[in-house]
């Protein structure tokens, strides 16, 4: 059975497009990435799946249940981590987490305690006194306590420091091994690369591609910055290079293709410095998907 299956799911806000004809199939046990720049429709798609937004047209099922009719059943089995956390200011984290867990069944204070310790969250502080990152930690604990079958994570790492990000990813990998399906939305490609098997790319509300991460890596553009001892004459760049720019003895260009030929090319040069950079998503879209 599929974890998530959408069929031409669309959401319009008046006349402006939120998402348009989104058809996706995500298998159980998969870690599925959802990449797109800000405002591309990632959150709209997620909110529609959760029943927060009423779809304009199309349909979807989650774990075999129809989102329009069986939202309550679905949400029992889902853990949702919002991109922006808004909780009840007057509650402490502990109160909020207990309140949240009672929607799923009996309270489980031990599990709350364990997860809070893992993420170094002070349970007795009021929500209103928590920093952005700490609110996020509270939300992470919130989405895990009831051991959901499907995790829907909307830009989960925003606000987390690298140490916590790492801990969170390790936890996600462990959850996935236990069989939890993970739907991971992000605009940071490297996160998606680390965790996901497949990813959908969304742009202006439409899915532009669904790729295996391996293929995406091969197609992925890199920004290359080289500093030469002396500016070489008649330098031939490897195939897949574009937009080359010289500043004295410095060269910038973009490279799309397998990494090996690029390394072989770099190896034969007389370089002082070389930097390979991951471009931001927007430029991947500009350079790859529009070619």
């Amino acid at each position, binding site marked *: 059975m599929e974890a998530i299956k959408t069929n031409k799911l669309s959401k319009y*806000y008046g006349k402006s497009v939120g998402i348009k004809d989104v058809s996706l199939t995500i298998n159980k046990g998969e870690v599925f990435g959802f990449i797109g720049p800000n405002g591309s429709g990632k*959150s709209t798609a997620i*909110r529609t799946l*959760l*029943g*927060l*937004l*009423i779809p304009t047209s199309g349909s979807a099922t989650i774990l075999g249940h129809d989102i329009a009719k069986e*939202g*309550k*059943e679905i*949400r*029992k089995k*889902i853990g*949702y981590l*919002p*991109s*922006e956390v*808004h*909780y*009840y*200011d*007057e509650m402490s984290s502990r109160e909020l987490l207990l*309140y*949240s867990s*009672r*929607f*799923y069944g009996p309270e489980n204070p031990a599990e709350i305690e364990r997860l809070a310790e893992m993420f170094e969250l002070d349970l007795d502080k009021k929500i209103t006194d928590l920093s952005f990152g700490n609110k996020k930690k509270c939300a992470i604990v919130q989405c895990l306590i009831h051991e959901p079958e499907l995790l829907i994570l909307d830009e989960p790492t925003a606000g987390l420091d690298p140490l916590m990000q790492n801990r969170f990813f390790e936890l996600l990998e462990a959850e996935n091994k236990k069989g939890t399906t993970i739907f991971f939305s992000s605009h940071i490609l490297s996160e998606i690369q680390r965790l996901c098997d497949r990813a959908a790319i969304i742009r202006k509300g439409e899915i532009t591609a669904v790729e295996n991460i391996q293929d995406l890596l091969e197609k992925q553009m890199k920004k290359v910055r080289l500093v030469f001892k002396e500016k070489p004459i008649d330098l031939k760049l490897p195939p897949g290079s574009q937009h080359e720019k010289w500043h004295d003895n410095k060269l910038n260009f973009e490279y799309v293709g397998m990494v090996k030929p690029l390394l072989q090319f770099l190896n034969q040069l007389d370089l002082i410095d070389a930097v390979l950079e991951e471009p931001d998503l927007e430029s991947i879209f500009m350079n790859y998907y529009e070619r």
Partner: protein
Amino acid sequence: MNWNLYQKELKRNRKNLMIWSAIVIAFTLMITSIFPYMKGMGDDITALMDKMPPELGKALGMDANTWSSILGFYSTYYGIYIIVLVSIFTTSTGATIISKEEKDQTSEFLMSKPISRLDIFKTKMLALFTLSMIMYIIQTTVALVSISIFRGDPVDWDVFAIMHVNGLILMLFFTSLGVIISMFVTPKKNFMGIVVGITFGSYFINAIGQAADAVNWISYISPFHYMSFIVNESEYSVNYLSAIVLLAIGAGVLYISYLKYKKKDIVG
């Protein structure tokens, strides 16, 4: 009905309930306890009433008898202030019980939990009803006790009961208006202005209609016209037809509110 959410709503509104109850209790005690002094001045006030334009007396629901019995005295204040104060509390609670979650953006949290929108709506309405009834029962009990203490002469408790049934119906009617206002008015700011406007406004519309025969019709649009507090009328009773109509309108208003809520997009 979701017990978890129900408890949370009661807890969240606890402070507000206590503050408003304190105000209403104090007011009830004040009115009833000053009655023995007012009664002592009965003749002077009757003389004063005779000199007042009769329209003013009608507008305030007063006549010469108002000052001779504690129920007559209490009813003028019950109709103007107490029911309006109680309704301001219940109506503003009704206006915020759902919309506060939208304003604070916590509805995203609530609606991502395994609970249907119908359950949320029902539970919140039940919490609202509970809060309103607590307020109402506290006020009625305090009035009952206080009138027993300060009455002087025997009291016709049937009249007291009719008054309070009328008050209850008005309170429930206004409360349902609070809920629907919050569904249709954006942005979700402070509803207090609208709530005070509607409750006091309907009282004054009725008062104007009663005072001036030329605009008598105006009082028909006010629910106060149908749920009267003029206890010295010979046939003072509950107007059952009006009561049923007002309650039916209230139920209809809640149903429309639910239809609106069911289709609402929760945009972050």
